[in-house]
């Protein structure tokens, strides 16, 4: 073998996995571009930004930005994730999997809050705010005292209770050998009896198209087919709007408002068939008395504002959107407000296009 080939072979082996040849596509990434996107944090602390935050600051931030879904103490509202408690439940039925009881690494909580929270307003938290919120989550899980300050420097000292609770996929040693056998074809068992029925539990979404009896009936020769029902028209009542305001019906503005509304849509649904979610539906909200959407659990301040005569005129909606916490103090909407007047005008036009 020639010396050249030897060298080539050696370098190929050193290079590790066989790689394809370069084509020369793409351009060099700039350092500031990498900094902007590379925000991931590893268990060893790689990727943690400079900064720190206290339990006390975290409590305030959490109440403002997180509690609407996760509850004031991380106990979770409705189906939203519970963040605290649950230690000692992992070997029970329906284990309570929280950051305190289940998550193996604190870096995961920092990384996730930083990249994905608050829900619908991702990547709006400063590093210090993330440290503070994570510190408060630790406090709610009884893992630190109330004077604790989490920082880049002490971060990796925090070990979560379930850090040792995981093992690597062992199916190849356990299940795969057990299930890789010649399957039985005849006289495989004595009895096969029904022990549990989904229809008895009855949690499947209700819809005529998934109902067996419906389909059998539909396929059967029907001597007298039921008459086609007349389409049901849903009339959207036009609530009175305070005189003096004109709501734009400019399609371009409405369309711009639809884009702005995406910020709202993580909590507020709108349109035909919309249902209350984290926030009340916005269908027909313009001109409506505050705090009166059926079925929504409003904060006390919002109920009181409505009872006191607050009506969602375009002007009031605009003022509320500019400063939600200032306009109705202590209401539960976790939103800092819209800064641009254009956005406010557009989103009101969009909301108004859905009744009101």
């Amino acid at each position, binding site marked *: 073998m020639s010396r050249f080939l030897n060298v080539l072979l050696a370098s190929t082996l050193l290079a590790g*996995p066989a*790689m*394809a040849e*370069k*084509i*020369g*596509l793409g*351009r*060099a*990434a700039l350092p500031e*571009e*990498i900094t902007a*996107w*590379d925000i*991931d944090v590893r268990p060893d602390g790689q990727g943690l930004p400079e900064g720190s935050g206290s339990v006390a600051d975290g409590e305030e931030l959490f109440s403002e930005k997180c509690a609407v879904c996760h509850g004031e103490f991380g106990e979770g509202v409705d*189906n939203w994730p519970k963040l605290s408690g649950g230690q000692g439940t992992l*070997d029970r*039925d329906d*284990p309570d*999997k929280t950051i305190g009881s*289940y998550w193996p*690494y604190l870096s*995961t909580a920092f*990384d996730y809050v930083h*990249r994905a929270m608050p*829900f619908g307003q*991702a990547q709006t938290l400063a590093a210090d705010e993330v440290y503070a919120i994570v510190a408060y989550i630790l406090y709610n899980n009884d893992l630190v005292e109330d004077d604790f300050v989490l920082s880049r420097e002490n971060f990796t000292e925090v070990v979560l209770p379930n850090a040792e*609770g*995981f*093992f*690597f*996929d062992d199916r190849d040693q356990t299940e795969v050998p057990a299930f*890789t056998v010649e*399957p039985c*074809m005849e*006289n*495989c068992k004595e009895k*096969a009896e*029904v*022990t*549990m*029925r*989904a229809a008895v539990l009855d*949690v*499947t*979404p209700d819809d*005529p198209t*998934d*109902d*067996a*009896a*419906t*389909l*059998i009936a539909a*396929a059967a020769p029907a001597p007298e087919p*039921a008459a*086609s*029902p007349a389409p049901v028209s849903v009339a959207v009542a036009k609530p009175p709007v305070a005189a003096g305001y004109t709501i734009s019906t400019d399609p371009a503005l409405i369309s711009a408002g639809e884009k702005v509304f995406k910020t709202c*849509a993580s909590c507020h649904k709108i349109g035909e068939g919309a249902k209350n*979610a984290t926030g009340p539906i916005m269908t027909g909200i313009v001109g409506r008395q505050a705090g009166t959407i059926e079925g929504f659990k409003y904060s006390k301040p919002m109920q009181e504002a409505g009872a006191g005569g607050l009506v969602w005129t375009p002007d009031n909606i605009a003022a509320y959107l500019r400063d939600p916490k200032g306009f109705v103090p202590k209401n539960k909407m976790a939103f800092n407000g819209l800064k641009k007047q254009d956005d406010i005008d557009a989103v009101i036009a969009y909301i108004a296009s859905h009744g009101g």
Partner: protein
Amino acid sequence: MDEMSHKGTSRRGFLRAGLAAGGALTALGTAARASGPDPLITEVQPWASQLGDGVDVAPYGMPIRFEEHVIRRNVEWLTAETASSINFTPLHELDGIITPNGLCFERHHGGAAEIAKSDWRLMINGLVETPLVFTFADLMRFPRVNKIHFLECAANGGMEWAGAQLNGCQFTHGMIHNVMYTGVMLKDILAEAGVKTEGKWLLAEGADASGMTRSIPMEKALDDCMIAFKMNGEMLRKEQGYPARLVVPGWEGNMWIKWIRRLEVGDQPWEQREETSKYTDTMEDGRSRRWTWVMDAKSVITNPSPQAPITHGPGRTVITGVAWSGRGTIPRVDVTLNGGKTWFPARMDGPSLDKSMHRFYYEFDWDGSELLLQSRAVDSTGYVQPTKNQLRAFRGVNSVYHNNGIATWWVKPDGSAENVEIS
């Protein structure tokens, strides 16, 4: 009965009507005799006389209105909010092995991002010789490959661990789709940046509001992973990651990062939220399995099933279903009519491709008696799909993910079917 009247009647009304009709059906049997000439044949129908739609009535065609019930569906009580939720592929309405693009189940963690091709960027950074940025136009200059693969959510069947819960294979098995991807091999893209020797892991990151991330071992990344931009020949749907997504054949769906924007090379895994607090399998003793990436062999009978009862009464009946394995192909599926006492080999039909859905059929003469229907996949490694009880013996019932146990449909004399557990 046409689909309009079907829609307008109350569910309860249909239940009563169905029970009455069911009894009559059994008596009718299969050798139906015409009671008179069929007006659909003897009378000139409007469509045979008057002109139908011209071309361009629908420049992008949709299914005919008689199929408008064939849709993805959501189980509202499962999640708090549709932007972080899942809906289900209507498997009981499909045949063959390809899932139509508009019916591929959706799973988002921060809603479906809307990103124009011109706004898309892909960055490679970390342990590489040259960190790079690609545009969509750059992506189109790599050699392309076409591959058909199933994508199954690790939570498919997750509601069924403790027992039969949801009545329909759409809900019990519908977190899966199977499409042909056109894209670029990940190894070709990584080669442009030059992976350093110590680069053993890859972090894939999405551009959506959840910033979805997963750590993937470099060995898999360089083996068969792709960055895909087309599905079934057309651009990816928004909800499937337009304009580009990761394809990780045979591995759990959560790793197939949609709206992909960044690949970071590192020397250890990142332990992100979706690979620690989620997509890990908790055992009976409270300890949890991690890195359970490969999807085990699985199958399900799609017809008949709770949403697709037998409507023709006794006689010739076609059983069909799908099977797949993250470890290879499915050369064999067995079907039982009596809850697993006796099994028959099903007839495999259609393409048999690596880590792709397979279609099976079993035709038989139904005598109108009760059936306990099950299917059992055997993959190309010889792995046999386990019963739910076999799985529970290893994992308990709190595992949530990776439930590939055998499902049972209890078919009753009226042809209706119900999701049940059996002894």
